[in-house]
């Protein structure tokens, strides 16, 4: 029995359905359909189309018939899972999320666990045998609804229970979270539509020349529970190792867990072998799915999955986060596997990632006998040696020195730009010193304690901002050489073929502009002006992406630098953006 065609405002991402239009169902629902069409099991869902969104704005409310279709859509999910929306036995909860054809910021976040109220909480508690879980689901839903539908701006995430979340919402907005699941659903759909006209979404479209009437679709998907019984659980799987990029599945599984448990760190999940031992068939099915998604996605995937009573559900698959080292390995490996072209590989690795890899490190063993003067929180990694100064003015007068302050403020930024490293007495990972140093890619250690400035000023020190230690004297460092690492060497070769810009130590074409010879007072928060007619630039600033962009925009032919790859990648990225 198929009722798909009878819907006016809904589309069902069914594996037998033909490919839905992304314009109609949005990118997220399209990818759900994609997983279904690959034969993978995802929790059942339906989509309220962008046409319904257009009608919502034309009619000033949910269009005629949509409320009835929402009921039909939910009935279909109920039937597939044997659950009841708002039911007092085996209740069905759903997620509601936005999805435009072009993803844009300012759109509403996902509401999870919609369909919850006091009675449903009791039913969930009875079913799972875990009242804490049921209470947590209810609390979280109340927070999602309060923030996303009712527009409460208070921080609701850290409140302990549903009652306190409700109180916070009542204190901030005039409305309450409705108890009726159907009312929750209609309001959530309307809120998603409304979010496509938010200040941020409008600004984004204007900036990119995207038509302003491009609305959003709404995906309504059944929640599945990994904490239902011993045959249930939840986990994440990386198709490739996110730390070093090796092609081996890598992940965690938590029996009787819910998605948030793994992320929240409340419980320690087990390695995937745990799933293999308990459910070899599910484990095999998961690995096959992962392999499929890696190949189809042409990239390492980060897959969220839930096992509900022995049945595997895939919740999401998206490009995996990775370290710089893994990004390089994966990009080169994908070319070797014939999955992507070298040009594509170059777009998968950023200049910043390569800079990270090329950072010098303290030579092996050199720190063992060195004297640690102070230590603190490693806020921006890297190593630098220099003489310690304690004012931004002195730092400007001695480029390459180590700036040590009690803490930093906007007053110090010009000194931080000139310094090779920054050390502070106070502050943590979010302090001004930490944030600005990361933006500048300058090594930084914060929170070294009172007296640090006094004890260090005037000395030569080596700052190891990867471990957070400051050593007396100059320690030998070892720098990675991009021509000695096979992956980097190949990327460099591809990159040189992809841009006409000359990059290296012996590429200077006259006239040359050297930013490092500028007087101290011109080293500031802005990029230096490149004299017109300049053919070659050199200087530390032109090794960073914003310097590369400025150099290209002023029409130079060559950049002098020892590390070629980051500059080449920044240049290629700039060509890509501007062409």
């Amino acid at each position, binding site marked *: 029995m198929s009722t798909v065609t009878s819907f006016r405002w809904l589309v069902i991402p069914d594996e037998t359905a033909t490919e839905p239009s992304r314009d109609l169902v949005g990118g997220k629902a399209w990818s759900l359909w994609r997983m279904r069409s690959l034969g993978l099991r995802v929790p059942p869902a339906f989509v309220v189309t962008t046409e319904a969104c257009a009608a919502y704005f034309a009619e000033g409310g949910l269009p005629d018939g949509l409320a009835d279709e929402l009921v039909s859509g939910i009935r279909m999910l109920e039937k597939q899972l044997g659950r009841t929306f708002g039911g007092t036995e085996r209740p069905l909860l759903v997620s509601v999320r936005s999805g435009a054809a072009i993803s844009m910021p300012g759109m509403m976040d996902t509401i999870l666990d919609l369909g919850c109220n006091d009675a449903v909480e009791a039913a969930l508690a009875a079913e799972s045998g875990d009242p804490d879980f049921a209470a947590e689901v209810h609390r979280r839903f109340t927070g999602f609804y309060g923030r996303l539908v009712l527009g409460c701006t208070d921080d609701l995430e850290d409140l302990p229970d549903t009652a306190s979340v409700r109180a916070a919402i009542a204190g901030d907005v005039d409305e309450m979270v409705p108890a009726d699941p159907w009312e929750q659903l209609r309001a959530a759909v309307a809120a998603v539509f409304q979010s496509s006209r938010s200040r*941020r979404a409008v600004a984004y479209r204007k900036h990119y020349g995207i038509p302003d009437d491009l609305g959003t679709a709404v995906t309504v998907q059944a929640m599945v529970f990994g904490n239902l019984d011993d045959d249930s659980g939840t986990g994440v799987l990386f198709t490739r190792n996110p*730390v070093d990029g090796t092609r081996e599945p890598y992940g965690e599984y938590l029996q009787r867990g819910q998605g948030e448990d793994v992320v929240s760190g409340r419980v320690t999940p087990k390695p995937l072998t745990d799933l293999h031992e308990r459910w070899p068939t599910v484990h095999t099915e998961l690995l096959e799915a992962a392999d499929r998604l890696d190949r189809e996605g042409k990239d390492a995937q980060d897959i969220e999955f839930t096992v509900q009573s022995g049945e595997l559900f895939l919740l999401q698959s998206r*490009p995996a*986060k990775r370290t710089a080292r893994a*990004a390089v390995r994966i990009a080169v490996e994908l070319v070797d596997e014939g999955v992507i072209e070298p040009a594509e590989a170059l777009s998968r690795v950023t200049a910043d990632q390569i800079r*990270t890899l090329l950072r010098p490190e303290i030579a092996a063993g050199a720190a063992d006998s060195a004297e640690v003067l102070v230590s603190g929180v490693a806020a921006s990694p890297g190593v630098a040696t220099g003489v310690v100064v304690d004012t931004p003015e002195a730092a400007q007068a001695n480029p390459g020195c180590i700036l040590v302050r009690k803490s930093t403020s906007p007053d110090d930024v010009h000194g931080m730009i000139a310094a090779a490293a920054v050390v502070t007495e106070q502050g943590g990972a979010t302090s001004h010193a930490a*944030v600005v140093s990361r933006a500048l890619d300058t090594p930084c250690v914060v929170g070294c304690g009172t007296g640090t400035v006094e004890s260090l000023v005037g000395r030569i020190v080596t700052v190891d901002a990867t471990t957070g230690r400051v050593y007396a004297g100059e320690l030998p460092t070892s720098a990675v050489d991009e021509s000695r690492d096979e992956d980097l060497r190949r990327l460099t070769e591809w990159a040189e073929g992809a841009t006409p810009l000359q990059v290296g130590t012996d590429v200077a074409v006259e006239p040359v502009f050297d930013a490092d010879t500028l007087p101290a007072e011109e080293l500031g928060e802005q990029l230096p002006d490149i004299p017109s007619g300049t053919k070659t630039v050199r200087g530390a600033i032109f090794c960073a992406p914003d310097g590369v962009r400025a150099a290209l925009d002023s029409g130079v032919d060559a950049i002098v630098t020892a590390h070629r790859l980051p500059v080449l990648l920044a240049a290629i990225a700039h060509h890509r953006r501007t062409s």
Partner: protein
Amino acid sequence: MLDPYELTVHTLTLRQLGSAEQLAEINALPIGDVEDALEKAVADGAVMAARGNYMITPAGRAVLDGVYPRAFADLRSDPAITEAMDSFETGVNKQVLALTTDWQTVEVDGTRVSNDHADADYDNKIIAKLGRVHEKTQKVLRPLAHRDPLVDRFLDRIGAALIRAEGGESDYVSGVRVDSVHTVWFQMHEHILRLTGRERPE
């Protein structure tokens, strides 16, 4: 309140090494007034000039230390301002700093590494959160904005940076060389600390 001369010298504590235009962008004075103030301040030794850029001197800081208590006496004795500042420091300010850190770094398998901005969903969520904190900050700082029009101007400039960040110009979240959310936020923080005579909490 600060007169144009005092305000111009004060602006150089929010942004070191600024041109007259850049200072006017921050303090909203007519450019001519800023230029006049700078000229006088250089003659007084409160400000140093270097090729079109200006920098405050220790003497200039001493002048401001004398000016603030008088100029902001009313504001500093207002309990609503004290309450707003407490709420700012413990709430939205911490949130913005934490979000900026989340923007710059991501956790991969338990280790924090640089965010390579390959995950648009992750980035968009942070920008969306920054947007919500920005909206909340307008509420939190309302008592200060009533007394000092520059506070609203800072909030507008943070909003402008957010819009550029949302438009894909990622430098506008925490970049140092542009008027990013973080750059302007810190200028604003420094400004209201000086207004209220408070120390930076860390």
